[in-house]
């Protein structure tokens, strides 16, 4: 069923919120602040939880501890100068942040991107997706108490991918690689060979994690049936990314928009049917496999050519007045940039649509009535990065 179909179906029955759980009135509610210093929150984030025994009655997320004025700084910096700041939004996936911003500016100016650059963007974007999903799964299991074993395996693979990033862009995490009209530097054949080698080792790693975890009874008992997010609610709240697909809604921006050259790649979109934490975990595993297929295809088909339009301006870049909204399927959801230009060197308005923040808005609905030990797991399955939530 498509997204529109879903919306139509559910408008008929009414957008139901899950019932509000009331406490039985005996005894006071235990009010606890989980965080901001907490070994399992993904950064500085606080949850004010009201508990009745073990059940969650109320949950209020409090964030803003990492606010760094990104959007205001962008109003005082040139368009190019904002590119390194976008690295630091979702600091685990810097290349997809760069891509979203470059895409938006290219939309604003109507700039074309050479083909080799598009292939490189796809390769780097999918590598970012693989290492993000691997880390996310690792952190989720770490919170469950497996003393970090899957996390260490995930980071072992992530190190290889980060070494690739360093070889091409110069930096492991803050890549600052995409430019308006292409990519900053070209990839050498040696780098492409190294990438092929790393990509060939990835399926073995995913199989290893699969064997270790996917049919582990304890994992299944902890995550199945926990943190259910109904599809109508997900769509209503604007949730995007693997969380939305785990709730059964078929919406992947790479298929819907077909930005870049994604319509040349045949990849499948996995969907979840039980809408719980286990589905989100498995959807990320399956998406990693799909990304590897895309990587293999891109590495085979990448053409020769320039990676940057030679007429594109680096300095003195003043787009004509106008506005544009550009979005991509970042590993965490729909990452969008909204730019208004008034003809000057700096943007008039620069707005980021952070997927982590939007996905976090229904945390309370998912956690109501659940055991407090599961709140940590549900929070981990949303997969947020505070750099993006707080900007």
């Amino acid at each position, binding site marked *: 069923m498509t997204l529109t179909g879903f919306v139509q179906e559910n408008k008929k029955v009414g957008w139901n919120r899950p019932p509000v759980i009331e406490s039985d009135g005996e005894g006071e509610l235990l009010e606890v602040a989980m965080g901001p210093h907490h070994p*399992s929150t993904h950064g500085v984030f606080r949850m004010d939880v009201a508990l009745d025994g073990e059940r969650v009655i109320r949950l209020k997320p409090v964030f803003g501890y990492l606010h760094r004025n990104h959007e205001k700084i962008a109003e005082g910096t040139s368009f190019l100068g904002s590119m390194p700041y976008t690295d630091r939004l979702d600091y685990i996936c810097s290349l997809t942040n760069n891509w979203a911003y470059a895409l938006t500016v290219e939309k604003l100016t109507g700039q074309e991107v050479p083909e080799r650059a598009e292939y490189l963007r796809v390769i780097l974007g999918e590598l970012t997706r693989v290492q993000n999903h691997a880390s996310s799964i690792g952190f989720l299991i770490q919170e469950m*108490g*497996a003393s970090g*074993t899957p996390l260490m395996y995930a980071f072992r693979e992530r190190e290889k991918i980060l070494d690739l990033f360093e070889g091409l862009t110069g930096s492991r995490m803050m890549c600052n690689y995409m430019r308006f009209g292409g990519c900053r530097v070209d990839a050498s054949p040696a780098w492409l060979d190294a990438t092929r080698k790393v990509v060939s080792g990835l399926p073995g790693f995913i199989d290893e994690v699969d064997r270790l975890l996917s049919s582990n009874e*304890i994992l299944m008992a*902890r995550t199945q*049936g926990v943190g259910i997010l109904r599809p109508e609610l997900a769509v209503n709240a604007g949730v995007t990314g693997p969380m939305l697909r785990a709730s059964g809604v078929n919406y992947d921006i790479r298929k819907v928009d077909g930005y870049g050259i994604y319509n040349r790649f045949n990849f*499948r979109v*996995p969907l979840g049917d039980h809408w719980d934490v286990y589905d989100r975990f498995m959807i990320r595993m399956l998406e990693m496999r799909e990304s590897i297929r895309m990587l293999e295809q891109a590495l085979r088909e990448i053409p020769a050519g320039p990676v940057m339009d030679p007429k594109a301006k680096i300095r003195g870049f003043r787009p004509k007045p106008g506005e544009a909204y550009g979005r991509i399927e970042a590993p965490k959801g729909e990452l969008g940039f909204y730019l208004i230009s008034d003809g000057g060197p700096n943007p008039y308005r620069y707005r980021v649509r952070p997927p982590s923040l939007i996905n976090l808005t229904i945390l309370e609905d998912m956690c109501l009535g659940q055991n407090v*030990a599961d709140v940590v797991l549900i929070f981990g399955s949303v997969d947020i990065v505070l750099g993006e939530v707080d900007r």
Partner: protein
Amino acid sequence: MVERMDQVFVLFAHWLVGFLPAGWQPVAAVLLSVVVIICLFPALFALTTVLERKGLGRIQNRIGPNRTGPFGILQPVADGIKSLTKEDIVPLSADAVVHFLAPLVLVVTVFMGFAVLPMGRGMVLADIDAGLLFFFAMGASTELSVFMAGWSSRNKYSLLGAMRAVAQMISYEVPLLMSSVAVVMITGSLSLSRIVEAQNHYTWGLPHWYIFTPWGLAGFVMYAIAATAETNRSPFDLPEGESELVAGYHTEYSGFKFALFFLGEYLAMFSISGLGTTLFLGGWSAPFSFLGWVPSWIWFFSKLMLSICVFIWLRGTLPRLRQDQLMNFAWKFVLPMTLLNLMVAALWRFLGDGWERWVICSAILLLAYLAMGWLGMRQGHIGPRRYRYAD
């Protein structure tokens, strides 16, 4: 010569005690054994902490501690110095006497449990007729210290953690005892040295250890599960989970008292492994009759360290169970299986010698296990899933 090696400690003790007048000798002998136990097992504990960290490290593709001494052997010295020099913080509102006594109670009762374990041929400190009963009495007393710690801290989170820990330990006492009762039934005695002697016979070079019988194997598995839960080890370590809300009953302890809790937990692990070895793995008896020349105490300690390695292995692999799942598991799965095991052990005894009893007992246990396992997973709606892709 072989006899000498086997009895070397007994002979040494006799020689030492021989220097004293006859009236003092029995007391001196006991005191000497007590001193040996008090020195030996904490040394083993120190070795185990290093082993655990190195083992977990190797499982996670990393080296464990290796800077303090060769292969990190001196790490416990560093940890000991740290815990001794830390400030001993006692909360102002805490019940000072109980707060002080709780770790002491733990350590003392755990040490008492070692008194009845036969660590070699004729090397048991107190050869009581009801040795097993004494051991379980001491083991149950450790739970008192857990509650004392939680109560005296006057901290609602510590109290919650302590209550959870005590509930867990009490729930798993029953399967622990029940699986041992099967052994007692077959041996006909509660005395641990007689249980070991009953297993010290060989047929065609293979030993008569109880683990090599169907009811013994099932009993050992359930004993192992209950032992893991008793000592609050992963996957049952929710009471001391770092990423959970309640921080556990030893939150308010620092410095040496915390080290004593840690020591107590590991000593409990040793003593319960020692008991498991005695009951099911044949204690100090050699695995093959031709290996009888190796001293008996070497066999006992090797089997003990093997059990510790299995504990470490479990910790490195499995995520932890939630509290209610843990209790469900104890009462709804492990306890019925242990009761069934008792009946199967009785059946084993009365079917007489021959191959039929192997087949019948194994079949009953296997079918029961499959049925209950399948039923449990079905009821909780947990199981591996197949995922669909969008079209």
